[in-house]
Structure formats: C-alpha cells, structure tokens
C-alpha cells in the first residue's frame, strides 16, 4: 500500500469565534479520487483553502509525501504541485482566457511574455476538455457563461504538472455533456497518478468516480471510507446526521449546534 501524498492531521481552523474545522484528519492518495462531501457550511471549502494556502490552519499538521510542510501562501501550494479549482472560481473578469489560465505563472521572460506559446497551450487544454462553445481564447472571462467560466477554472488547474488537484464543486454550473467531460477528466487525472479531491453534492457523481469518500459534518471528519464499502443512503445519513450505524460519530449529537 502506498502512502498518502497529502495528509492532514488534527487541523483546526476558526474565523474569530466561529470554529469551522475541528481536529480534522484527511488524506489524499496518489492515483485515487477522494470525494469530500458534507452539508452546506460543513467546512469543505475551508479545508480546501487551508491546503491551498489561502487560510492558514490554527493548529494541526500538513504532510506532503510524508514530510511536514507549511503552506502559507498559494505560491507554496503551487510549488508543491497542489492545484485548486475554487468554488467561486476566482477568475479575473477583465482578463481573457489565456491570461487567466497562466495568471501568476506566465510563460516567457518577466519583460516579454510569450503570448503565442501560452495561447497554444490554452487552446490545447481547452480542446482536451472538449470545450466547443468558446469562440476565442482571447475572449475576456466576463463574456463567458457560468459553465464556460467553470471550464476555464478547471483548465487553469489541470494545465500544470501537478501532484494534487482539489476541485471544489467543479460541476455545479455545468450541463450534462460538460459534467461528463469533467468526471472523465477527474478519472484521467487519477490514472496519471495524481491525488484528486472532488467536492460534490451529487451522490451519483461521487459514487461513479470516487475511490474513497470523506464526510465532513459540522467541521468534523466523521468518516473516511472506501467507496465500495458504503451505500448511497449511508453516506447521505453521514452527511445529514454525522453517523450511520457503526460509522461516524460515536454518540448521537445533542441538538445544539
């Protein structure tokens, strides 16, 4: 059995008085898709941002390939080969598709960017995602539809030789065909040996592509199980109640939140 490429142990994160993540343990395995599920506000995006260097965890350990690392900035994450598709996409509206995809990591020298090479790579990546509706890679992102924007955000993350890709609800705005493309892409990334984390509220998608499922409930990791050892309804129960039979929280939670 290989070791996790990324492992979080005992991660806590608060925003002022709001304690969002409680002693979260979470592992990402190379070549596997880990689905991260949980109700709205469970802390999924916060967990992702803590790994991405957007937030710094208050306490806890992050290990990359078995070695403790500090991820204090998005640059740190990128240096480790961690790519993120954010739930809010985080694209610069006035910049075009190419400029967004290479933002912060432009090709060429600092004094003369290599536009032709970036444009070519952007086209190829979009083509591999079967994007057919975008007229030009020089279209400003503000002129794209919600689904097209989401595809650009995904393309931006898969453009790089990465080790871990975290996708925060990447199919939320996508049509049937595009969702299909993204799910295939998720599998493809894993087959390349990348550790993939997929956040989704769609159980069918989760069960289709995930090798293991991690459930966050009110900021606590209540279960991390191989997909073939749980059923749909068990996962739903874990998401909504934090426990299901032997899985999840030991005792029923009191009603207080």
């Amino acid at each position: 059995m290989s070791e996790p490429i990324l492992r979080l142990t005992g991660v806590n994160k608060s925003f002022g008085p709001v304690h969002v993540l409680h002693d979260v343990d979470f592992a990402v395995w190379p070549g596997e898709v880990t689905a991260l599920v949980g109700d709205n506000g469970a802390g999924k995006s916060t967990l992702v941002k803590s790994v991405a260097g957007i937030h710094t965890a208050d306490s806890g350990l992050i290990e990359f390939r078995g070695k403790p690392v500090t991820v204090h900035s998005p640059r740190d994450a990128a240096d480790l080969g961690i790519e993120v598709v954010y739930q809010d996409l985080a694209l610069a509206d006035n910049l075009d598709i190419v400029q967004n995809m290479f933002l912060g990591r432009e090709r060429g020298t600092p004094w003369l960017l290599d536009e032709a090479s970036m444009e070519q790579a952007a086209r190829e990546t979009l083509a591999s995602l079967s994007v057919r509706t975008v007229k030009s890679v020089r279209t400003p992102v503000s002129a794209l539809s919600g689904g097209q924007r989401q595809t650009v955000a995904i393309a931006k993350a898969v453009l790089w030789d990465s080790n871990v890709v975290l996708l925060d609800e990447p199919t939320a705005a996508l049509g049937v065909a595009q969702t299909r493309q993204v799910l295939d892409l998720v599998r493809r990334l894993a087959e390349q040996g990348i550790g993939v984390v997929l956040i989704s509220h769609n159980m069918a998608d989760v069960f289709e592509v995930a090798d293991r499922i991690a459930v966050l409930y009110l900021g606590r990791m209540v279960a991390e199980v191989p997909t073939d050892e749980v059923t749909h309804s068990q996962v739903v129960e874990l998401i909504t109640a934090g426990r299901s039979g032997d899985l999840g929280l030991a005792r029923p939670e009191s009603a207080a939140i």
Partner: protein
Amino acid sequence: MTTDESTVDTNGVHTIERQSLRTRLLTANTFWIGLVLLGLVIVFSVLAPDAFPTVFTAQTLLIETAVLLVLAVGMTFVIITGGIDLSVGSVLIFAGMVSAKTMEAMSPNGNALNAGWDVILVGLVVAIAGGTAWGFLNGFLIAVAKIPPLIVTLGTLGAALGAASLINNGSDIRTVPTELRNTLGYGTSFGGIPNLVLVAVVITAVAAWLLHTTRFGRHTYAVGSNAEAARRSGIGVTRHLTLVYLLTGLLAGVAGFMSLAYYGSTTISAHATDNLNAIAAVVMGGTSLFGGIGSVLGTVIGVFIPAVLKKGFNIVGVQDFWQMIAVGAVLIAAVWFDQQRRRARNRL
C-alpha cells in the same frame, strides 16, 4: 456582437479562433476616443488652415502636454489597479523643490544658475528620489495598512504640498541652472523635436511596454480586475500595489524635474489641478475607474483632447472657458460609454 468567429473544420469539430483585429478595435474604447481626437484635429485644421496645422502649433502643443503626459502615464497604472492618486501634483512640486534646493546648496552663494551637469544630475536623482519616497508612502499606506487610496492620497496631497512649502518658506525657487533650461527645458533634437517632448515620449513608450508586454503589466490588470483571484494565483498583491504607487510617485518626481527645467521655477501654485487633469485624461482614454481595463495609448489620446481643444479654441478665437465645458462633456461621455459597455457585457 453578431459576428460568429467559431468555424467548423472538415471533421465537423469547432476550432477556437483568434479574435479578429477588427472586432478588437471596434470594441475598444480607445478606438472611439481616438476618432474624437482625430475629428477635433480635422475640424480645427479646416477652421484655421493657416494657424492650426503648423509645426509651431504642434511643437507648443506637445511641449505644453509633456509634463501632464508623464503624470497621466503613472496615473494609468494606478487606475488600472482600481485605485486613484490625488497627490501627483503636490509630489511633482515637492520633487522640484527638493531638487532645486539641493542644486542651490551645491552651488556657490546658493545660486545654481551657472551650475554644471554634475549638479544637475544630482538634482535629477534627488527629484526622482523625492517623488519615489511619496509614492512608496502612498503604496505602503494603501497596500499594507489597507487605507482607501482616495483618503491616503488626499492626505499626501496636502502633506507633500505642505512639506514642499516648508523647504523654502512658501516661496518659489527661481535659480534653476541655465544649462538645464537650455537643454531639457527649451532645447530641441533631431531637427526641431523639443527635448522635453522626447523625454515624455520615451517614458510613455517604456510605460506602454511595461504595461502591455511584461509580467508586471499583466499583474497590474489582474490586481485591478480581481485582487482575490490574483492572490490565489500566487501574485503578491500587497507588493504589487506598493510598486504601482511607487512607480507613479517616481514619474511625478521626473515630471517635477521636467517642470523645473521648463518653467525655471518650482511653480508652487501652478499644479493644483494636475491630479484632476491627469485622472480626466486617463479616464477619457478608456481606462476604467473600476479597474482592470485601460491602456497607455488611450491615456496619450486623453491627454491630447483637452490640449487640442484649448489650442484650437484659442486659435479660432473662442473663449477659453468653452474648453473647460467641452472637456467636461467629453469626460462624462467617455465614462458613460464605459458604463454602457459594461452593462452590455454583463447582459451576455
């Protein structure tokens, strides 16, 4: 936009094409405001064929806009980041003042009129350093202390002017080296091109290159477009913003030195509206006050529209005051255009 540029190749697969130059031109605000400038030049040339389209008019027009152009070029960067810099005029005066004072101090009897190039070069360095210092202060307070740019630069607008006045007890310094005045101030090169204009052109060209082809320029647009996205893409937003304000201060310092060379005085009272003129020029040139959009070329056009209007009205014999009204109208129209464009885009 009705032109469909996606094409279907022989396999029936859509390919993603380059946007045509025509489409890009027509959607750019710069194109339309450029037409306005061209129209003005043509109208005045027709109205005063003997006086307006002459080498002399062109020379004076260019000289009179050179200093403002340098300020406006710096302002372009700031406005593209979604900020504003009200302090440029005061920083210009401050830079000229410390520069003149230094050159005086280095000359016998405190009279710099006969100073040589060694003294003048020190004066240039001091002017640039003075401007850069205010720019850095602006940048630090805005990017690090996170105080709104309008407030910070309103504060330094007053502070820089106050500091400049303190240096010489509120009066102007008029002993500017004759050598400097004769070369940078009034000299010409390449058969009649004023040196002052050459300097402004070089600075503008370098700024255009910086904004449009370098990583620094790209990040300037990104920060103005979506600072959070820029941050998540690994751009040091705080550092970048600081550098942008520092650059604008630096250019104000250069402008201060140019102004010194041209007027032969520190002209304390002559730059009260420089900041607003620079902002107006930048905005007329199609740079959006909301950030993320703009160009140096647009700013050049925006600087010339008021200048051409003023010169044209003078030559044709229309009262100067009409120029102020006309510039105001163009400015408002340009911003209205910008907003229409945004609305049209958001409807997509």
